[in-house]
Structures are given as structure tokens and as C-alpha cells.
């Protein structure tokens, strides 16, 4: 049943995660109340407002935007992870492990320190800084890791970790050296949203729609690339253009996620990996499924982050690392025994 209906299953899972994430918090708001409140917001729907205005305010101005930002971030990280894996022909490429997320973080923080995080203009410039940081990092890591036209696992991860650590160190220096509060800086580096409310959602939305929209269309290119660059070209794919296209789109998607949600690792690794086991490696299917499942996974991680040390909140990046790092080691062990493509 689950295997035969990947889209249905993942959509239902995501809807459930969204609803549960809105319900969960200092006050539990029952899902049916949430649905009625949300339905009441739709045009031409008139419901008797039998809910408390406090609940309505909590949902509409806090939990709904937070939940949407988390879901979009998860979707972006998982799908760009899948795209990097296809591009590098390496199942362990993840925006965090290959350093791109840290590079994006550096770019974002650079923009924050230059503009001040509160300024309206600054808010919209942050993704551009993150995007520039991500592109430069991916090009650097790619060229460092390349050996005879291949990108082997060891050099990719080593180059990614080294470049990522360097970028993170620069980011910390910048954050601690300027008037951004230490707490906010640490939260960002560990993967937590620095700002609440609708503003970040509206700031990421256009980039996310473009980035993930274009990623959805890269499935065929990535499939053909799996046979190697030379064969892909002999089949008629302009590999230079294809690679540049995927790098730009995946980096844009990663960068926007990092810009407002901090450096969150392992989502881009775990989600495509599980999806491949369940529904195969066809990128035409893997990319949209990664968006749905990535949203769900990060929402569940975020819920854990909110309840583990309640009433305070852990940065969600800590939760994904706690779950993701052992998962990464498990894949490594498996990779030693079998070749999966």
C-alpha cells in the first residue's frame, strides 16, 4: 500500500506533521480547532467563531508561520541534498557534509552584520548573501574533491568538512565580533531560526518556489548523469549546462533554507536515502518526494526540539545531528559492503 502510492503517503504524512506541529506548544490546541480556525480565514467561509481569540492569535501569528518555515526548510534541504547526490553521483552528499550549508551560513551572517538583521532591506538581502556563499563553497569543494573527473566519497567529504569548518569558524568570528547577541549567533550556527513571525516566511517564499520548482524539473538530467558525464553527453545531454544548472538551483535552495533557519545538517542525507530504499532512485520521483518527506522529517525534529527541554527550545540542528550522525555512520558501514549505484 505504502510502496504503491508514494505521493499519497508522503502528502498525508506531511499534512499530519503540519497539523501536529501547529497543535503542539505551551498550550495544546486540538487539531479540529486548528482546522476550524484556518478554514475561517478562507474567503467565503463563514464559521461560528467558537474558539478563543488567544488561540487564534497564537496560531496565526506564531505557530502557523513557524510551522511553514520549518516545512519549507526541510523540503529545501532534502531536495537539494538529493540533487547534490545526483550531481556528485555520490549518495553521501548532503548540503551540510559538503560544506555548502556552512558557506551559505557565512554569506548570510556577512549580510546580517553588514546591514543589521532588523532592517527590512537587510532581511531580503540575507538570501542573496547565503546564495553567493553557497555557490562559492560548492565550486571550491567540487574542484578540491575532483580526481580525474570523478568525485570520490573520501575527498568529497574531507574537502566538504574542511571548507565547512573554515566557513563556520569565520561565521563565529563575525558573529561574536559584532553586536549580534551570542545567544542568537549560537542558535543560528546550531540550526535554529533567528526570527519569528511571518517576515522570514515571506522572505524565503519566492526563492523557495523558484528553487524547488526548478529542482522538480531536474530529474531527467540527474538520471542521465548517473551513467557518467561522457556517456551522458553521448546520449545528447549538454553536461556543462546541466551541471551548472543543477549547482545553481540546488545552491539557491540550500542557501535560502540556511538564511532563515540556520545550519541544519543531515536532512538532505537521511530523507533521500530512505526514499531510495522505498521507492527507487529515479530522480524524477525522488526530488518531489524529497520535498514532501523533508518537510515532514524536519517538522518532527522541530517538535522534538520544542519538547525535549521544554519550556525552552533546542536548536533543531541539534536534533537532526543527534539522529543524523549515527544514521550517516550506518550508511557508511553499508556502503562498505555493497555498491548502491
Amino acid at each position, binding site marked *: 500500500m505504502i510502496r504503491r502510492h508514494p505521493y499519497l503517503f508522503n502528502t498525508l504524512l506531511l499534512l499530519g506533521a503540519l497539523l501536529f506541529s501547529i497543535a503542539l506548544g505551551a498550550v495544546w490546541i486540538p487539531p479540529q480547532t486548528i482546522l476550524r480556525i484556518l478554514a475561517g480565514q478562507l474567503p467565503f467561509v463563514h464559521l461560528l467563531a467558537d474558539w478563543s481569540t488567544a488561540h487564534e492569535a497564537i496560531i496565526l501569528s506564531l505557530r502557523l508561520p513557524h510551522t511553514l518555515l520549518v516545512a519549507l526548510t526541510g523540503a529545501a534541504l532534502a531536495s537539494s541534498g538529493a540533487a547534490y547526490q545526483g550531481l556528485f553521483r555520490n549518495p553521501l552528499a548532503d548540503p551540510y557534509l559538503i560544506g555548502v550549508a556552512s558557506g551559505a551560513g557565512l554569506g548570510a551572517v556577512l549580510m546580517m552584520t553588514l546591514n543589521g538583521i532588523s532592517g527590512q532591506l537587510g532581511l531580503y538581502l540575507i538570501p542573496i548573501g547565503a546564495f553567493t556563499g553557497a555557490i562559492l563553497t560548492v565550486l571550491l569543494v567540487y574542484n578540491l574533491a575532483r580526481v580525474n573527473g570523478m568525485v570520490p566519497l573520501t575527498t568529497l567529504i574531507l574537502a566538504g568538512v574542511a571548507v565547512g569548518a573554515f566557513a563556520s569558524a569565520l561565521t563565529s568570528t563575525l558573529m561574536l565580533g559584532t553586536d549580534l547577541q551570542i545567544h542568537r549567533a549560537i542558535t543560528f550556527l546550531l540550526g535554529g531560526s533567528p526570527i519569528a513571525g511571518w517576515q522570514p516566511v515571506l522572505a524565503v517564499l519566492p526563492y523557495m518556489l523558484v528553487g524547488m520548482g526548478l529542482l522538480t524539473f531536474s530529474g531527467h538530467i540527474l538520471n542521465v548523469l548517473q551513467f557518467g558525464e561522457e556517456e551522458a553527453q*553521448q546520449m*545528447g545531454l549538454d553536461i556543462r549546462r546541466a551541471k551548472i544548472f543543477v549547482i545553481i538551483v540546488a545552491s539557491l535552495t540550500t542557501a535560502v533554507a540556511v538564511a532563515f533557519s540556520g545550519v541544519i545538517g543531515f536532512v538532505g542525507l537521511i530523507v533521500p536515502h530512505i526514499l531510495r530504499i522505498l521507492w527507487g532512485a529515479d530522480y524524477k520521483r525522488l526530488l518531489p518526494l524529497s520535498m514532501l518527506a523533508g518537510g515532514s522529517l524536519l517538522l518532527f525534529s522541530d517538535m522534538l526540539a520544542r519538547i525535549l527541554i521544554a519550556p525552552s527550545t533546542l536548536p533543531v540542528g541539534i536534533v537532526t545531528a543527534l539522529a543524523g550522525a549515527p544514521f550517516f555512520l550506518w550508511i557508511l558501514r553499508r556502503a562498505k559492503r555493497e555498491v548502491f549505484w
Partner: protein
Amino acid sequence: MLEVSTLSASYGKRRILHEISFAVEAGEILALIGPNGAGKTTLIRAASGTLPIEAGQVRVRGRNVTKLGIAERARNLAVVPQAQQLGGAYSVEEAVMMGRTAYMGWLGREGARDREIVAWALAQTQLSDYAQQQIGALSGGEQQRVLLARALAQKTPVLLLDEPTNHLDLQYQTRLLALVQKLAREEKLAVVMALHDLNLVSLAADKVALLVDGKLEALGTSQEVLTAEKISAAYRTPVDVVPHPISGVPIIFPGSVD
């Protein structure tokens, strides 16, 4: 159908191919032979456009394909790469469908005609029953047929094969060559095939091109090229050549017995 004229190509500063010229007619198989490092694979890469050429031309139906864009070139020349371990991720049908890339555009949206041609390519290579199987689970001989089917799906008048019988056992070697012969005759394909096993060459090829150190040493029928004198000199090892007792094609024994 295929004309290669004064083709030269290099890796970096080292020139690998020196002014190679030959022509292959529709329905004809040209075998490319020569010792390791003679430039067989380089010639196929240069002709298919994955290695930039320095001088010369590759013409398909009179058109210079080196001047064409990547997709247009893939509609004129298809390459069957060396036998290799294919990853397990795709079904046979999906892998063969990727041969339609040059016709499908970036989104890879497949039309009725693409599906029709893929079904034809699968039938030609006796893979129809395997369409839904994962390519990683297939035997070496079956995987090589998948690569051939993928090249057929490109619907090109010219087919280039790079040592397609490598790693295959005797049964699969002869079956694959018989299949290539049948396709060349029935589909009027011009075929260039790099081969190591000289006895397979005399079995399957209409013409033989002998490459040594990137130069074309001999070009002709297998009787003309597969002589003890030419092969001994090219491979720097003594060989005996005798005619097959039934068909009369040359048979090559390494190590002279006199």
C-alpha cells in the same frame, strides 16, 4: 554513411591520433583493431565528440557532425560504451529510455513515439521480458545488451561500439556480434566496433582498420589486414594465420609455431 577524414586528436600535448581516414557504408561493419594504447577508444571518443578534435572531419550522411550541437550529434552518432558494471538503480526500460535524451529536451518528457522506439530497441536486443528488471541485477551479457538497446533508442544512422565483448564469455560474445551484424544489415546502420579478439574480427567485420600508435597502418577486408606479417608487426609478437577450414576466414594463433 560515415566518413572520417584526416582526423587528429590529442590528450593535452600528446597527440594520440594522426590523420585517420576511412569510410563506412550503411549496413557495413568496420572493426577497429590494434594493440593497447593504439588509439581505438580515443578514435571513438573523438568521433562522438567527447574528446575535442584537432583537425579533420567526421561526416554522417555528408554532414560534418563535429560542428553540430551535442543533442544533434547524439541523433547522428550513438556510442555503446565498454562493458561495465552498471548501477542497480534503474529498470531496463528506464535506462533504454535515457537513450531518447537527445529527442526529449530538458524535462525528459517521453512521448508515444519515444515509448514506441524503446519497445522496438528492447525487442531488437531480446530484452522485452526484462523491461521492468533492475539493471544491476542482470548478467554482464544482458547489461551489454541494455547499453546496445540504449544506443539503438538514439535512432542514429551510425553506431560506435567500444570493445563491446569485453568481460563476456564465449556464448555472449558471439551472440552480441551476431546481433550487431543483424542490426547492421536490417537497419542499414554503419557500424564501427573496436575489438580485441582478432578471431571475432574475422568472424564479424566487413572491413578492418588496423591502428598502431595512433596511425592507420592498414585498411581493408579481414583477408587483407589480418595477415601474419601485418599482425606480427603491429602487436610486436609472432602470430600464425591460417584460413578457417570451412568458411575460409583468417584465424590468428598467437606465438609462431615454426
